[in-house]
């Protein structure tokens, strides 16, 4: 689907005002990266900035799309809002937990840093999310059946 949505949502005057105000701010950031090149490694930073958008658009988005498409067809329609919310919570938890679970920042000399069992904590949090989701999804399906009978 490719509707000409931008025509209906972009204001030409607003965009011009945004450019006048925003482009100098962008340039200030680029200037800061260049002046502080010893610390910012501008070439590497550019790769990370462009790479962040590219990985989101070309990897994360298709994966989420595929998961959503599959889930939606596998479950009763009435449970979709609950399942979608549960997947959002569990998915973002899993994403953020990644460096903790992998233990990239673990320090042997400083037990006060990253002191928890992050794998166990993440699994518990996701398990609770899935249980709440299952209950909500089931309730939604039951409600929908009652309504259709009535």
């Amino acid at each position: 689907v490719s509707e000409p949505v931008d025509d209906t949502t972009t204001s030409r005057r607003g965009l011009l005002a945004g450019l006048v105000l925003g482009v100098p701010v962008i340039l200030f950031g680029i200037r800061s990266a260049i002046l502080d090149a010893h610390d910012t490694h501008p070439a590497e930073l550019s790769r990370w900035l462009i790479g962040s958008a590219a990985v989101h658009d070309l990897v994360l988005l298709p994966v989420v799309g595929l998961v959503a498409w599959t889930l939606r067809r596998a479950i009763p329609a009435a449970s979709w809002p609950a399942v979608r919310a549960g997947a959002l919570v569990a998915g973002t938890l899993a994403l953020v937990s990644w460096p903790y679970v992998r233990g990239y920042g673990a320090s042997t000399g400083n037990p006060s840093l990253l002191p928890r069992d992050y794998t166990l904590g993440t699994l518990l949090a996701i398990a609770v999310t899935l249980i709440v989701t299952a209950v909500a999804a089931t309730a939604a399906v039951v409600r929908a059946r009652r309504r259709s009978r009535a």
Partner: protein
Amino acid sequence: MTPDTSAAVETRSAAWLGVALGITFTLCFATGLWSHVLQHPPAWFTPPPRPAGLYRLTQGLHVTAGTASIPLLLAKLWTVRRRLTVWPPVRSTLHAVERLALLPLVGGGVFLLLSGTANVARWYPWHFYFPAAHYAAAWIAIGGLVVHAGAKAGTTLAVVRARPADSTPDATRGDRRAFLAGVAAASGVLVVATAGGTVPALSPVSVLAQRRPGQGPHGLPINKTAAAANVVDAALDPAYRLVVTGPGGERALSLAELRALPQHHATLPIACVEGWSATARWRGVRVRDLLALVDAADAPAVTVESLQRAGRYRSSELRGAQIRDADTLLALELDDAPLDLDHGYPVRLIAPGRPGVLQTKWVARVVVP
């Protein structure tokens, strides 16, 4: 009112998510800028020491708002995913410029959330210095946000002010609300899962908190240990002297001499740039009293240097009101016991309203330039 096509429904979700992101990103930018000027104050700026807990609040908000933004940004990009592949990709020069300005916004936004999250987890899969790169990227992203907000301000305002068209089927309206509620739930869960390092009440369920309140020497977390700073021998050396240098000459004070000076208590937080914070009761000598020993009571600025030989945070600067604040101490004790080596024994700086990295530990010299 736009017709209730699927595009219009998307527009409503995207507008509300845009408002939420506008708020969280602005909050992150303002608090990040505050953290930046405290650590790199321009010559004309004297960082205010009061309110003492201000940095704890601003930096806690910075990390919390950033964390809450993760589901918001992912959901926002999801709702507008079809626009990525609009055909033709470019319809006019202005349309090209608008699309081009999405790169700093999307690339910068995703990078800021990714790098901030990685930093709190102490994961550095890159060679640049995180604060400098995060700072430059913040200007780039916020500039992109200003351009985008300008382009979409009219639509967003219309959506926020208007009620959905009466023709919108209830199911569609309910679906959009359920979607936005799911996004809000994901943001809330992430905040609760990470905020335990600064809100002790959340700690039991903060499964991704970087710190646990009460864990560490004196029940206070540690950022850098004495061993990691390579100062163990120098800090434990019986010949240790605190050297204070000013216009009135130089004084070298032993620990016994420091303890003989008037001692004062201060209850102040350690507030880390990574978002955690914890309050403790410190006791030691006021910096202004020490400076009086070398006729520098009115010094506009002083440098506090650590025993550390290297490292970006081996020294820090105090200016103006920070120097003269009654709670700006060179602390010898924490909770009525001598400082633990990892908390900066024999002497550390503790002052109100400062980032933790500027609370210099293992102090060797106080210098009036």
